[in-house]
């Protein structure tokens, strides 16, 4: 911890002017115990930022995990409670490993009885493949349920994807950005490769494809009779849905994720809340937070950082709780700030000699802009104690200005309340939106500095109340 402590103090001094902005709260100034920020209400699910199902040995730090209840449509007894599901604001829809399910969910089929299959691909060349089924979706500790897609028959269920270790259809080559080669982990179809039991995509759109897949054929949904796959048009009601958009309550317009600030050296884990609805309850008001509408690609139209401009879509920048780090710019472009890349197994991470503060200016499609402050610490030092939650770990997003972007991953969420508004839920922001409050790392370190390591209590009012 000595290296981490030194770094923390350095940042704390730099950030002292922000003392008093301790909105996110912090359970401990020592950084050695799990930090917690709590909210209460029937729309609040607990989330934990940390290692998830695989633990420290799995090497997957900075995930954000919750528990989801999956039932047969219309049933409250044929259910599985599925722990360690990644909360991902960068994707849409619930995807669950078949190995985590004991109940049998009805498949979404075409008129010939062929089960709809889906291929989801990620930028790191990984993919998920498996059938689409319907389920009643609930969230542990809440009163929230998604019984059916809006406009569909009562209790008909919400389409989810079952990620199949033993898929009912062979993965078509068009689902693979790169060939599946032994030893090259490109699939996320197992607990070991996924790091959890599933992904809860709560991004800014209501379905994972939308009109594009309803009116034209894309390599996303398939039917594969006799293992010969074709690509059908799929009505939006049959696509995998953002479970939030299908909630029966009025909390179906988005989510608010609150996580506590952690010390600059990290924390074993950080416990916070996934709060359903925005401005629908006493605990999810958006208050004075600046709203940033996304563009049609789900990006900030523009982000400016360290003199560089990142414009969507070629350099599309975004908020994504499913990204483990703040990936931004590249070590070469940031050399003047003191950023250097780590070596060896940590190549691609940033390993500066001291903690470096950054301020990005983010722009919304609603013609507003505002600052995002974050710090970057030495990844090698951060990872040494075996902690699972860091607000200051970062890495390259590309190799130069032509492909760089700014991906505000899980570190951005620590010490902030982040709102994710779903497209169509607010006529003022038709593309969907983000909003956030809290000062993130700066708040945390300032608090540690002023209190000289004395434990700081939780906020006196529920987070989000204004």
């Amino acid at each position, binding site marked *: 911890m000595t290296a981490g402590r030194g770094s923390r103090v350095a940042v704390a001094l730099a950030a002292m002017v922000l003392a008093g902005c301790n909105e996110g709260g912090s359970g401990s100034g020592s950084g050695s115990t799990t930090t917690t920020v709590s909210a209460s209400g029937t729309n609040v699910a607990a989330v934990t930022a940390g290692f998830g199902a695989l633990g420290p040995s799995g*090497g*997957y730090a900075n995930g954000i995990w919750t528990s989801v209840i999956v039932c047969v449509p219309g049933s409250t007894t044929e259910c599985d409670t599925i722990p360690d599901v990644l909360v991902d604001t*960068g*994707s*849409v829809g619930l995807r669950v490993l078949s190995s985590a399910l004991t109940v049998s969910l009805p*498949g*979404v089929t*075409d*008129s010939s009885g062929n089960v*709809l299959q889906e291929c989801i*691909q990620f*930028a*790191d060349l990984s993919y998920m493949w498996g059938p689409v089924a*319907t389920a009643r979706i609930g969230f542990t500790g809440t009163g929230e349920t998604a019984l059916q897609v809006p406009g569909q028959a009562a209790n008909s*269920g919400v389409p989810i994807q079952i990620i199949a270790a033993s898929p009912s259809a062979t993965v078509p080559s*068009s689902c693979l*950005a*790169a*060939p599946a*080669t032994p030893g*090259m*982990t*490109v699939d996320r179809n197992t607990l070991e490769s996924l790091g959890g039991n599933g992904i809860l995509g709560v991004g800014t759109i209501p379905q994972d494809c939308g009109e594009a897949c309803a009116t034209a*054929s894309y*390599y*996303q949904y398939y039917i594969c009779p006799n293992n010969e*796959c*074709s*690509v*059908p*048009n*799929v*009505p939006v009601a*049959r696509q995998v849905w953002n479970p939030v958009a299908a909630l029966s309550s009025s909390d179906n317009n988005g989510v608010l994720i609150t996580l506590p600030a952690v010390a600059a050296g990290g924390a074993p884990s950080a416990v916070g809340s996934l709060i359903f609805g925005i401005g629908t309850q006493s605990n999810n008001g958006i208050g004075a937070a600046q709203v940033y509408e996304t563009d049609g*690609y*789900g*990006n900030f139209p523009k982000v400016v950082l360290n003199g560089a401009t990142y414009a*969507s*879509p*070629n350099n*599309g920048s975004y908020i994504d709780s*499913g*990204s*483990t*780090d703040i*990936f931004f710019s590249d070590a070469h472009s940031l050399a003047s700030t003191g950023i250097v890349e780590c070596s060896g197994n940590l*190549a*691609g991470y940033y390993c500066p000699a001291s903690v470096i503060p950054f301020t990005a200016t983010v722009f919304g499609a609603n013609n507003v802009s505002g600052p995002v402050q974050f710090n970057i610490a030495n990844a090698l030092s951060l*990872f040494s104690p075996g902690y699972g939650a860091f607000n200051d770990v970062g*890495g*390259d*997003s*590309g*190799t*130069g200005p*032509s*492909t760089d*972007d700014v*991906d505000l*991953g899980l570190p951005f969420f620590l010490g902030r309340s982040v709102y994710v508004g779903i497209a169509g839920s607010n006529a003022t922001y038709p593309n969907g939106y983000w909003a956030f409050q809290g000062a993130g790392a700066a708040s945390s370190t300032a608090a540690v500095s002023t209190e000289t390591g004395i434990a700081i209590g939780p906020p006196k009012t529920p987070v989000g109340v204004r």
Partner: protein
Amino acid sequence: MKTALGMLPILVLLAAPTWAALGEYESSVSVDRQSLRGTDREEAREGYRLHEIAAADGSVIREFVSPAGLVFGVAWQAARMPNLQQLLGSNITELQVNLQSRTPRAAGRGPLIVQTPKMVFVSGGHLRSFHGYAYLRGMVPAGVNPEVVQ
């Protein structure tokens, strides 16, 4: 759930269409346009030529062609990941060899950046907005900055 879907299956050829793969001659670019059902735009630039293929789904693929007629770089901006087996051709093995040697930590959850003595590869973004590029260091024409590949 036995209700009919009302889906209208459209059979498409899942056999791999031919792309102008990285490192190959540009003559296959016209084939790309057909397989993408998109529009093809060509632009002469200082020291190289740019082919831009805009597909019906809004995806844009750019291919950078040397004076010798070889594709030295490819770039994409697309709602879904492009088929890299087609875009990179035989250079996909550069990716495979590199990725097989990585540790789980390095795999991370974010962009993928691979730099080998032969090739630079970057893939970033998220569902609805992927972007990336690849170029072959040894094929970039003299006097051309590799950063033009974007």
